[in-house]
């Protein structure tokens, strides 16, 4: 694996400029490839580490992380022209925006794994992403804006994190833990009582995977949630 590109003529260019070169692949393929190599060299460690961490609870996690890594960079190459930093000029902020963009691509890819329609059509075609161009570009653009939005300061409570880790560790079956993990992959905060519902197509994919039913998938999520809640109720200091 290439961990650096000392002889790459594009080494001195900014992240944004590399993406611009990549976006011009139809005019100059050789330069676009050189830009991609340099881009990969700059981001492979952080994105590889991130995806390895995020995939650790999934079945076949190492291979999944590698495949997800592959598709994330492939999407970045294909949709390089959709990345924009607006008026931002600080290279360290731009780097973070690029990482946020790449992670959002990875999240979209991972969610797509449970999209029956995509799995049956796009992923098995020779050029799988042609039909998704507009939708995905829109997703990536909005994701970048989301990532650039600051959130209120949120203190880290190490003790609480440890207890949550233990609570999730109590989920007895690998299958249940994986379903619980996928639930969070699709979770949208602020959905109130509707939070429990996975998208229908995701429930169906999981039901197919485990040779069970959508209703049972929902029950598994519910049971996991109850287990975690019960452990936290018993082990965390409560409101008096």
């Amino acid at each position: 694996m290439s961990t650096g590109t000392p002889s790459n003529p594009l080494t001195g260019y900014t992240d944004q400029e590399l993406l611009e070169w990549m976006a011009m692949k139809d005019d100059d393929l050789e330069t676009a490839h050189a830009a991609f190599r340099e881009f990969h060299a700059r981001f492979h460690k952080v994105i590889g580490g991130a995806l390895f961490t995020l995939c650790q609870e999934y079945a076949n996690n190492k291979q999944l992380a590698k495949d997800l890594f592959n598709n994330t960079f492939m999407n970045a190459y294909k949709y390089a022209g959709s990345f924009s930093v607006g008026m931002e000029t600080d290279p360290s902020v731009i780097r973070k925006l690029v990482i946020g963009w790449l992670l959002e691509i990875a999240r979209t890819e991972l969610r797509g794994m449970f999209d029956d329609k995509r799995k049956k059509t796009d992923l098995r075609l020779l050029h799988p992403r042609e039909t998704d161009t507009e939708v995905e570009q829109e997703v990536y653009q909005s994701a970048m804006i989301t990532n650039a939005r600051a959130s209120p300061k949120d203190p880290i409570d190490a003790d609480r994190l440890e207890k949550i880790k233990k609570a999730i560790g109590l989920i007895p079956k690998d299958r249940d833990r994986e379903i619980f993990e996928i639930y969070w992959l699709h979770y949208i905060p602020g959905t109130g009582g509707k939070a429990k519902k996975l998208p229908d197509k995701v429930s169906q994919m999981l039901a197919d995977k485990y040779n069970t039913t959508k209703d049972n998938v929902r029950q598994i999520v519910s049971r996991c949630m109850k287990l975690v809640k019960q452990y936290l109720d018993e082990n965390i200091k409560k409101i008096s």
Partner: protein
Amino acid sequence: MFPYNDKLNEDDGAFQDDLYRYLKQMGRAFPDTMEELDHFLHLIDQKNIITNDFPSADEILGRGFVELGDFNPSTDEEIEENLAQAAREGGEIPSDVIEQMNKDRKKSEEEGDQDE
């Protein structure tokens, strides 16, 4: 969860939002904001994960997109559990459970035919 409120139901959005926030702090869910991204990057940095066997740039360009995941269906004894529970509680059996039962029965019969 500051402080913890045990009066919330596990299906309550406030409880799940809090849990989701903690999962992001643990690196088990994707970061959504710049601040969460900062924390996540710090976490990754501390772990110092070796990614030398991840695909190189030329490997990615050479093979293009790959299919993610290969699911191996497993049998699920919990359908039986759910049915038993529904019977005990006098509840209605959901249509997708019945559909799955029919599929399983058919599959089992086919396998039985092949064995004979």
